[in-house]
């Protein structure tokens, strides 16, 4: 760990962290503002949803969420929050070390007296710090929105905290997998397509897995590992699947260290 690199990374990531935090905050607060309206017309809503085919509802994660309850409605929003969190974490993972190569600054950084391991650790800690900041904003925003808009309806605080904790673990998956892929390919020219691809790809997999419930796609995608519907119904994580996600993140990051230490930094031009 090198504090110079950490500070430099944090500074260069600051704007992005702010933008993502703001996006998540607005999403939760504005969306949850509609809760009263939804809850009051819950019967109508549920009737309308009944008319959609089950697969359709499953694709949007609505098959096991009751929009008339505080957490059911929050869980529905949280799927979109997850999508944001996935893209953010994926971007940070893909760009973590590849950005030095695509912006041709790898020569500068890696000829300094620091080991590759220290470079990677400093960058990881900075990226995780950024993600924690975004999660903090999400926590505060969620509590404020729910307290402000829930009206007379009650909710289970422990379940909400479980959902919120899942956000951070969920991001570790995308950070780790993004980082690993960025080191497996020859050169990452631009981070955004990769980050979007991984985030949306996993989301679509999860949607499909909902539509054809006999297909075991849920093994692959963290959107299923951390399905808010499951957490709300069971008031607990789906332990094996959460372990799977965390395991993939740990293995990806470990492999990334190994690959980065052996990597040939491509010459400029």
């Amino acid at each position, binding site marked *: 760990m*090198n504090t*110079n690199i950490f500070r*430099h990374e944090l500074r*260069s990531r600051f704007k992005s962290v702010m933008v993502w935090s703001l996006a998540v905050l607005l999403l939760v607060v504005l969306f949850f503002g509609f809760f009263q309206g939804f809850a009051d017309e819950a019967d109508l809503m549920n009737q309308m949803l009944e008319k959609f085919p089950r697969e359709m509802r499953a694709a949007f994660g609505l098959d096991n969420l009751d929009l008339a309850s505080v957490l059911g409605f929050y869980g529905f929003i949280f799927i979109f929050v997850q999508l944001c969190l996935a893209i953010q974490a994926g971007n940070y993972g893909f760009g973590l070390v590849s950005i030095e190569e695509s*912006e*041709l*600054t*790898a*020569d*500068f950084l*890696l*000829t*300094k*007296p*620091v*080991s590759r391991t*220290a470079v990677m650790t400093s960058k990881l800690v900075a990226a995780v710090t950024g993600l924690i900041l975004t999660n903090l904003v999400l926590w505060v925003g969620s509590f404020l929105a729910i307290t402000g808009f829930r009206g007379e309806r009650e909710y289970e605080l422990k379940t909400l905290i479980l959902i919120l904790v899942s956000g951070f673990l969920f991001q570790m998956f995308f950070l780790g997998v993004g980082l690993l892929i960025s080191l497996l390919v020859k050169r990452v020219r631009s981070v955004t397509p990769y980050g979007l691809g991984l985030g949306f790809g996993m989301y679509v997999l999860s949607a499909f897995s909902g539509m054809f419930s006999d297909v075991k796609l849920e093994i692959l995608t963290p959107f299923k590992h951390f399905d808010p519907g499951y957490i709300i119904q069971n008031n607990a994580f789906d332990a094996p699947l959460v372990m799977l996600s965390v395991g993939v993140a740990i293995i990806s990051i470990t492999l990334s260290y190994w690959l980065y230490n*052996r990597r*040939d*930094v491509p*010459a*400029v*031009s």
Partner: protein
Amino acid sequence: MSIIDVTNLTKYYGKSRGIVDVSFQVEEGEIFGFIGPNGAGKSTTIRLLLSLIHPTSGSARVFDLDVVTQGPEIRRNIGYLPSEVYYYEGMKVIDLLRYSASFFPGDFTKRMHELSEIMELELNRRISDLSYGNKKKVGIVQGLLHSPRLLFLDEPTAGLDPLMQRKFFNLIREENARGVTVFFSSHILGEVQRLCTRVGIIREGRMAEISDIRSLQQNNYKKVRVMAEGLDADLFQIPGVTNIQVEDGSLNFFFKGDINLVLQKIGGMRVEDVTIEEPTLEEIFMHYYE
């Protein structure tokens, strides 16, 4: 102990050749020129010594430390000026230099201002606003800032105007006088000639020759130019003469051997002008490149 000790160093990028079986030593305090055409493997060698890439086989030691396993220790005492300079675009020059210096123990503020003044570098500009030549200056200051014991210069003069080149060479000479060892890679032979004590010539990934710059110039060829009326190239068809060219009443050739043989020939003629000089490295190396 040599500062750099390279033994049978080989690097393949997949199937394509980087360098093959390269061995050489660089001693403390010398300026070692590393010469070769583009694509010969100069940058590959430097990048191996800086642990930016890993050797396929062979070994290299810098300060008697292994480049593969002890890179960070080695780099504490190294300054590197890459052939293409790229820095964090959003940063100001002064912030970049501070960031660079922060990796080394000590306070280099005074040295930073000194060097920037010599190289006429404006510290408050943004990297993204700098011209190529100005970025190169940032590279030079950045490479020298922390007073390294060993300097790697990879085609350092590209993009610098002649005045700046001279200032840069003076800087390098000053550093060298303080005992700094310099590894100077270039395909421009003239500048190596001006600066270096020994040169290694690399060609198609292999070391073609390593020699003292003086012996390279002296023990080899003389460049002879004779101006006279009615010159005939056949007159100088003696052993040791190569590259005879006749143009506008003057005869040019290279000669290797006892110079008296040539002088006797010339002595029997009525000439307008004669020059006998040491060929430039450029001309000598034409033989290696051919």
